[in-house]
Structures are given as structure tokens and as C-alpha cells.
């Protein structure tokens, strides 16, 4: 297991049992009954054909959508004794779990009337943090995505890749324990996308939060993740659950490595079995 040893508590673990989601109005069954365990600090990639229920699952985990059946448990691996953790519970991540969950959409979805800095500090502003604190945290987050010289600009003045970086910084600013990304770089050109993949992987290695990354790109999943899950066509069922056999330290050059190709090959076959191609 490739959890980051230096920061074992930085992420949450997830336990999904019999999660089902169907949409009454259309009769579509997105997920029939899904079991999934994600250990704390894991980088999990979910691959599947479009419209297979990946995004629905992510929304259910984020609490943006409700499952019709099943159980979802999000746990802190060790009990927190800080006042924030509330009554000395059994380690359940009970207090305001949403604040520590961050979600990155397929497009940047920034507030166009706010500067980059104000966009990134928004989550802390909504949580009621003091102005000085939230701006310091926002500057830090922007530093980490390499955008510290664009803080006073407006989204309309940025390129697509820069906007996506702002979106990523906005997700990181709350120091999330769980980072959910829904095909975040799909609309970007290949080079920008690889740069952002690289940056995301480094950020995860530094912070050790749990990451669930939905994508339809096999290459991206292989490069980024510890573990890849391949979904079938709707209703989503797990065709392959695979620990990626690649080094923890990954550079762009890895994409040309035969080991990389072997891993992508496995995922590709699984996608075909699931009825994607």
C-alpha cells in the first residue's frame, strides 16, 4: 500500500456498502449495488465509459447527491483529540465533514466577478474564516500550483490551464482530507494536462490526502494513481480493481516506459470487457 508514511492521518478512509443510485424521473440506474473500500491516503483512479455512473458515485461521496440505498462511511484513521474533532468519538469524521472534502469539476467553474485570490479564498470565506487567514491560505495554495503572480487577475484574463490551476488551488485551500476530481483536466490540451497531472501527483505526495480521480483516460489514471478501478457500462460494476505496479516517484518519462505500457494494457483490456469499446 502506498500511503505516505510521513503523514498517515492526512487522509480519510472510505467504506462503501451496497451503494445504489437510480434516477426516478428517467428510470436510469447509475449504480446498482457497489462495494468499495478506499484506505486513508490512497490515490484512486476510477476509469469507465462515459455515462457509466462514475460522476454519480463521486457526487454521492461528496454529499452532493444522495444514494437510494447503501451505506457510506468516511473515517479518520486515528481518533482526533483536537477540539475540532468534537466529542471523543470513535474516530468518525463527524464535524462538518464537507469542509474537509474538496471537489474539482470538469471545468474550472470560477466566479468570474472575483479575482483569482478571492476565488481561491472563497471556501474559507464561506466557512467564516478571518480575512487575513483566508488570504494567507489562498496565497499558499496559489503558490503550490505555481500561480502566485496572477492573484489579482480575473478569470476572463487567464488561459484554460491557468483557470484549472485556480480551481485546484481553491480545492486545496481548505487542506482537504478527501479530494474528489471529476475528469478535471479533460478539456485541456495534452501538454497542459500532463503538467497538471504531474503537479497533482506531487501535491498528493506532499500532503497525503485521499484522492479519488474520475477519468476516461487510461494513461492519466496509470500515471497518477496507486490503484485503478475500471467500471463497466451502466449500471456501474467493478470490472477490474488493480494496484498499479509502478514506482512512487513518477516523472513524465515514465509514460514511455514499457512497465507503464503493461499497466495501461491491463486497464484497456478491462475496459473492453466492461463493454466500453
Amino acid at each position: 500500500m502506498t500511503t505516505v508514511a510521513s503523514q498517515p492521518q492526512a487522509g480519510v478512509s472510505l467504506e462503501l456498502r451496497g451503494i445504489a443510485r437510480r434516477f426516478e424521473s428517467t428510470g436510469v440506474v447509475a449504480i446498482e449495488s457497489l462495494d468499495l473500500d478506499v484506505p486513508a491516503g490512497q490515490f484512486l483512479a476510477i476509469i469507465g465509459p462515459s455515462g457509466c455512473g462514475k460522476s454519480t458515485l463521486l457526487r454521492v461521496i461528496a454529499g452532493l447527491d444522495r444514494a437510494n440505498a447503501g451505506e457510506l462511511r468516511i473515517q479518520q484513521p486515528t481518533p482526533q483529540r483536537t477540539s475540532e474533532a468534537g466529542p471523543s468519538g470513535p474516530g468518525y469524521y463527524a464535524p462538518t465533514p464537507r469542509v474537509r472534502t474538496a471537489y474539482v469539476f470538469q471545468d474550472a467553474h470560477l466566479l468570474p466577478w472575483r479575482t483569482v485570490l478571492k476565488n481561491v479564498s472563497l471556501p474559507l470565506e464561506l466557512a467564516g474564516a478571518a480575512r487575513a487567514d483566508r488570504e494567507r491560505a489562498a496565497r499558499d495554495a496559489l503558490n503550490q500550483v505555481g500561480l502566485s503572480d496572477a492573484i489579482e487577475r480575473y478569470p476572463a484574463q487567464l488561459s484554460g490551464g491557468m483557470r484549472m490551476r485556480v480551481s485546484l488551488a481553491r480545492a486545496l485551500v481548505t487542506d482537504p482530507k478527501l479530494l474528489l476530481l471529476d475528469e478535471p483536466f479533460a478539456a485541456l490540451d495534452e501538454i497542459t494536462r500532463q503538467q497538471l497531472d504531474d503537479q497533482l501527483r506531487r501535491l498528493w505526495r506532499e500532503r497525503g490526502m485521499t484522492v479519488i480521480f474520475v477519468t476516461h483516460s487510461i494513461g492519466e489514471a496509470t500515471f497518477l494513481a496507486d490503484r485503478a478501478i475500471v467500471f463497466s457500462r451502466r449500471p456501474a460494476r467493478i470490472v477490474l480493481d488493480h494496484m498499479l505496479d509502478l514506482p512512487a516517484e513518477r516523472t513524465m518519462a515514465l509514460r514511455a516506459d514499457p512497465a507503464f505500457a503493461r499497466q495501461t494494457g491491463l486497464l484497456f483490456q478491462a475496459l473492453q470487457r466492461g463493454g466500453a469499446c
Partner: protein
Amino acid sequence: MPRARSNRWSWLGAVLPPVFVFVVLTLAAEVWLRVRDVKPFIVPTPSRVFSAVREAPGDLLASTCKTAAAALIGFGASALAGVAVAIGLSSTRLIRNAFYPYTVFFQTVPVVAIAPMLVIWFEAGLQSVAICAFIVSVFPVIANTLAGLLSTDPALRDLFKLYGAGPLSRLWKLRLPWALPNIITGLRIAAGLSVIGAIVGEFVATELSGNAGLGVVIATSARYGRTDRVFAAILAASLLGLLMLCAVNLVGYLSLRRWHASEQ
């Protein structure tokens, strides 16, 4: 900056063409009316209209100010009430379905018909005229603001939900700014309509003492066949509407220029 230099004279490009059109049309009308020998009480020549303005510029200005006061009060009330009503309507589908059809009342009611009632309820005077201006101009603000409030990006709604934002911060930090371009559009339409509403209101609901508003000038001048004064008042009313529209445009430009495509 080179950009600033090129912008210094760019306002001329916005002002000169309409002025040119005005001058050409006025001259054409003057010539045509003289050649065809149209009687002044049917259609006055532009030169007669201008001399009617010169005859008593102070009176015309006082009338315009009076109408402007009513139009501005009505417009201000439309802006506030229109946005407030739209916020209420946007809250739930049930409320929207229940009340939205009734807001259409404001768009369809003939204000000439309702003005005598206003006189009965509120007495003739500024208040009744301002209410006429309000009735005529509120619907576009409601309809446009509502459209803006309902079109908030679903992903951003999710984001605010994820970070536990309450209804007030959703309104102030997301929904109203998102609707701002639509609100400005609504106000643009309301600006002109409020002048129309005030003038129509003055036909019926003005008090008989004191200065006469433009509506009264139009009504009495028409009765005495002074079409030159009618047109002078119409000219003043048009300028008033244009001025209010320019003010709304300025507010729109200042608030949207950094982020909205319509002002970039």
C-alpha cells in the same frame, strides 16, 4: 498605455453617428414639410419645434424636472421591488408557479385605466404619477432578474453547498452577482418605460396647481393645436429617457467591465 490613448477619442465614435443621423433626419423633415406645405398644426417643422423650446426654455426645463422626479421614483421603486420580487419568486418552484402569472399583470394592465383609480386611492400628484411609472417599468426588472437568478451555474451551486454556505451567502456571493448582467438588462428597459409611465400618469393623475409635467404640457398643447410645443415636450421626454438609459449603461459598464463579455 497605448490602449488608453486609443480610448480617449473612442467616445466620439459612439456619439457622432447618432448625432449625424439626428441632424440629417431633422433637415430632411424640415425640407419635406416645407416643400409639401404641411400645416403646422398637423406636423410642425423642426425649426418651429426649436423656437418653441427657445420661447420658454425655463418652463420646459421645469416640466422636464417634474416628470423626471416621478420617473426616477418609479424607476427606483421598480429596481428595488423588481429585484426583491424576483428573489422571492426564485426561492421555490411552488412560489414561482403560484405568483409569477400575477406579475404579468404589471405588463398587461393599461396604465391609463388604472391611473384614475390611483387618483381615488392616493390623490392626484407626484405619488400617483410615480406609481404609474412604477407599474409600467417593474415587470422587465422582475422577469430579467428572475431569469438570471434561475440560471446560476449548477456546479457553482454544488460548490457552495459543499462548503456549507447558507441561503444568505448563496444569494449575496453567488446568485445576485450571477444575475447582475440580467438585472442591468431589466433596468435598461425599465429606464425608458418609467418615463412613458410618468407621462401617461400625468395625463390623468397630476394635480392641477403648480408646475406642469411634460404629460400635462403635451395634453394641453395638443388641445390648443400647439403641436410645436407637443413635439418640444416629446423631445425633452426622449432626452430624459436617453439620460436615464445612459446612467444605467454607466452602472452596467462599471460593474461588469472586468468580467462580463457584454462590457469587454
